[in-house]
């Protein structure tokens, strides 16, 4: 047991000197994000004209479409971080752990945005189509993206401590390659069987652009904020794991932490 764990220890600086800069930057970023969100909300609810065909119901578009766009952006962060992890795993374990923290943070942010997108889409669908859900190409692809990332996170949760990062990274590569194939296959599937709802993209009236762009910017900033926050949290968890392992390995500490399993998330 001793040998098994010793191989896996990657030393990090034990207690980093207190650095206030990230905190200040984070608070400033949060303040700016809130300002953007408020402006976006004002533009979308009070300034943009009601949709010609849908009236005020159409305003959900300003939250639905940015979430869809960001839900498709953050998987790339997850994929590149996972590839970086697999590459660095043996070459530079310390940097690999950083990449892994980015990967899990990006996966969770992806799940947040795709969930918002699916939820707002269903609300809109009930109001405009009269049904909560249609097996339309775009809805189905996004649902599958959501399912893939849920599977990714559950697998990470269930995996053996110490192997979580590798298992997760392999799965992320599979998911990233699967997504475009899913997208095209469902396009073919649904063009062969015409769906009951329209799928075409309406063009956006110029008066709606400010509200839309403010919201895209605001939610992008919010996404970056929670990504960085989750990343910092994961780094702390990694540090805690390692100090637990080191403590377990220290013969002087033997039996000092009964019931605390090395490598366990707590």
């Amino acid at each position, binding site marked *: 047991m001793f040998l098994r764990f010793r191989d*896996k220890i990657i030393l990090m600086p034990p207690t980093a000197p207190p650095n206030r800069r990230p905190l200040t930057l984070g608070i400033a970023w949060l303040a700016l994000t809130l300002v953007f969100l408020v402006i976006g909300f004002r533009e979308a609810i009070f300034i943009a004209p009601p949709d010609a065909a849908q009236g005020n119901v159409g305003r959900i578009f300003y939250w639905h479409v940015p979430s869809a766009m960001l839900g498709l952006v953050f998987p790339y962060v997850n994929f590149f971080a996972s590839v970086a992890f*697999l590459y660095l795993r043996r070459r530079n374990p310390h940097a690999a752990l950083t990449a892994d923290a980015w990967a899990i943070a990006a996966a969770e942010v992806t799940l947040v945005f795709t969930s918002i997108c699916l939820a707002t889409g269903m609300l809109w669908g009930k109001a405009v189509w009269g049904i909560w859900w249609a097996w339309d190409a775009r809805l189905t692809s996004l649902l*599958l993206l959501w*399912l*893939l990332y849920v*599977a990714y996170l*559950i*697998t990470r949760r*269930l*995996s*053996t401590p*110490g*192997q979580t990062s*590798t*298992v997760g990274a*392999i*799965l992320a*590569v*599979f*998911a990233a*390659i*699967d997504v475009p*194939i*899913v997208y*095209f*296959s*469902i396009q*073919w*599937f649904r063009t*062969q069987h015409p769906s009951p709802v329209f799928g075409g993209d309406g063009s956006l009236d110029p008066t709606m652009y400010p509200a839309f762009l403010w919201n895209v910017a605001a939610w992008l900033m919010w996404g970056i904020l929670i990504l960085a926050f989750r990343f910092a949290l994961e780094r702390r968890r990694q540090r805690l794991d390692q100090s637990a392992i080191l403590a377990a390995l220290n013969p002087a500490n033997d039996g000092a932490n009964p019931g605390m399993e090395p490598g366990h998330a707590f």
Partner: protein
Amino acid sequence: MIFVWHVLAHLRKELRLEWRSRDAITGMLFFSLLVVVVFSFAFDPTALVSRQIAGGILWMVLLFAATTALNQSWTRELRNHVLDAQRMAPSSAAALFLGKALANLLFVTAVELVLAPIFTVFYNLHALGQGWLLLAVMPLGTWALVANGTFFAALGLRTRNRELMLPLVLFPISIPALLAMVQATTAILTGESDPGLWLRLLLVYDLVFTTLCLLLFDLVLHAD
């Protein structure tokens, strides 16, 4: 060349083990027979309806049956620490994967050979399209399931709850392949549309994911 010999050695070992125990094939066969019967109770299909749903049912049956067998295919290696020996062996990890995936392909194909007449009789089927194309759809579809399935079952060894892990990961990743095989089979059985597009999709899916599995299997074997 030496890679081929390693693959064949793994394949021969798998086939001998299965021949002696017959765990996988018997289990899958009885399971799929039960599902066929249960489905016919659930839908009570006429000849016309059954032609439209048979493709879907056939692949669902095979997917579930293959999942049960795939879950077992690596646990064999855990007994007596065979897997640890495999990890130390000088042969490549891809050869181990390919040998096992090919063996699983043969097992599932054996089940299909028994299942085909049963399906024809129970659901009163005969293909209205080009029936011989099924000879391409069945192996391609089966390979899509077992290649990824074998890979994820090995990945499942790295998790606490492996019986749950395999379907959890295999089903979402296999959706494009499932869509392609069900659509191709239905197109052949009903003769209403052309299965060509779906066959090509299946072929591309197989090529892409087989390559990926072969490249990444070494990482799974040496994950810690």
